[in-house]
């Protein structure tokens, strides 16, 4: 069983605030899924290469060139808070 501390550590790394109920819930669920995943240890593996999806004859190359996005307004329109055309965030550094 994953400990409460382990769940909190994972949640911190994932930037997820969990409620008390969720901590208990994910302790059980993560343990359940990770327990199943242990069956991979039955497979003998050595240095197998990662899967190559795209056939090598088809790996496309293109010039690394920035292209203007035509709908700037549409992009900024989805922002939760904007000021002077910039994304607005809470204060990061407190004044002393």
């Amino acid at each position, binding site marked *: 069983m994953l400990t409460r501390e382990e*769940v909190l550590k*994972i*949640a*911190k*790394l*994932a*930037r*997820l*605030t*969990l*409620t008390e109920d*969720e901590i208990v*819930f*994910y302790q059980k*669920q*993560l343990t*359940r*899924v*990770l327990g*199943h*995943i*242990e*069956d*991979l*240890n*039955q*497979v003998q*593996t*050595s240095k*197998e*290469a*990662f*899967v190559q*999806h*795209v*056939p090598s004859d*088809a790996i*496309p190359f*293109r010039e690394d060139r920035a292209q203007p*996005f*035509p*709908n700037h307004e*549409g*992009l900024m*329109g*989805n*922002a*939760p*808070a904007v000021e002077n055309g910039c*994304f607005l*965030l*809470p*204060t*990061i550094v407190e004044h002393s």
Partner: protein
Amino acid sequence: MEFGTQTIQELLEGYQAKQFKPSEVIEGYLKNISERDEKLNSFLQVRPEETLANAKKLDGRMNEVNQLPLFGIPIAIKDNFLVEGWQATAGSKVLSGYVSPYTATSVQRLESMGAVIVGKVNCDEFAMGSSNENSAFGAVRNPWDLERVPGGSSGGSSAAVAAGLATVSLGTDTGGSIRQPASLCGLVGLKPTYGRVSRYGIVAYASSLDQVGPFSKTVWDSARVMEVMAGFDDRDATSSKRSVPKYTEELSSKRTFTLGVSRSWLEGVDPEVGKSFEAVLEAFKKMGGKVIDIDLPHTRYSLSTYYLIAPSEASSNLARYDGVHYGYRTPSAKSSEDLYSRSRGEGIGREVKLRIMLGTYALSAGYYDAFYLKANQVRRKIQEDFEKAFTQCDFVVSPTSPSTAFKLGEKTDDPLKMYLSDIFTLPVNLAGLPGLSVPCGLDSKNLPIGFQLIGKPFCESDLFTAAYQYEKVRGEFPLPSIAKGKG
């Protein structure tokens, strides 16, 4: 005239014969949505005025029917695709109210060839689920039995087509999210080869697995959508430059095929599904085909492999939902760090959080080799199993899902139980192969059963040809009564 039950082929024939106009067809489908979708919850957004205006523009272009392969075809789009001016929630509260600033390449190609979008359809949150019960906007119900799930994650895409609310639809398939709901709703569903269709403008889940594909009532319709939609896009670095065949023109080629069956893989399948699958094998034999036994020894590890790789990629892809640039922002943050964690904690749903945490754990210091690296090594072995099988046969075949549609709530408490409904579809994504689900029967509860043809990379044309032959032998597949305006 009543609309809803027609195929693309039938609508095109009607347009060619000037029996009806696009606006009449679209009006018919919009009426179906307003009358029937209250029961199904398959649509998340409908814009009747814009949709009808688009259809009316086509009314004046009736002489272009033969130049536009999808002229006046009503299509529904899964809500994890971006379509300019439409919402794209991906079934998540995090993206509630998000308006797409541009259009996905796949959708743009269909629209430019005459397709008319009738709406955005429901799905499991961020395409994570097998029953559509993980949507922040409520579960979708199966048109064949409203007490049952339509499958997932593209449950809205499958329910909408089965119920006659769209002629075809688009979905995404990361581990079975097109094929399994297609099977559970009695439709044809294709997961193309990795790299065949552009993913530009799709909300990313697991980028080494995600693919875009169509839902339709017939193989011909699926082939038609694919010949318009597939092909290279310089905005998706994984899209292939291989040319796209005219799939519909190759359907009638007279060929016989060798099908490979892995018997050990089929253990635990519902007996009625198993019986229907055996009948499919017999049908192919009668058409001159061969059925041979093959071995796929590593497919039994697909579930574990998938549930390390997909969540790992998801934990990275979903890091962008932090309440800064778009999407849900918590009202109570005191610092930036607090803003990220609270916005994510409050906005993201239960199953998605589970997968983000699984992935974070698998990628974290000290666990990477044991989990992520190991999973990728086993993934390679699964791919090699298929490569070996294809030296002996043209296709690997299996049922698409181990059971027919299950009841709402039946599997929501145990993630593993839910994950097992994708046992036949997961390895296909892991190996990057194309998979086509085709309806093959109804069980004693009058629920659809589907089988899956798995092909070599970029051999969609062969899959379509074989499935088209089978479809001719099987005969027309029934529709649920709701599609005919009843029930």
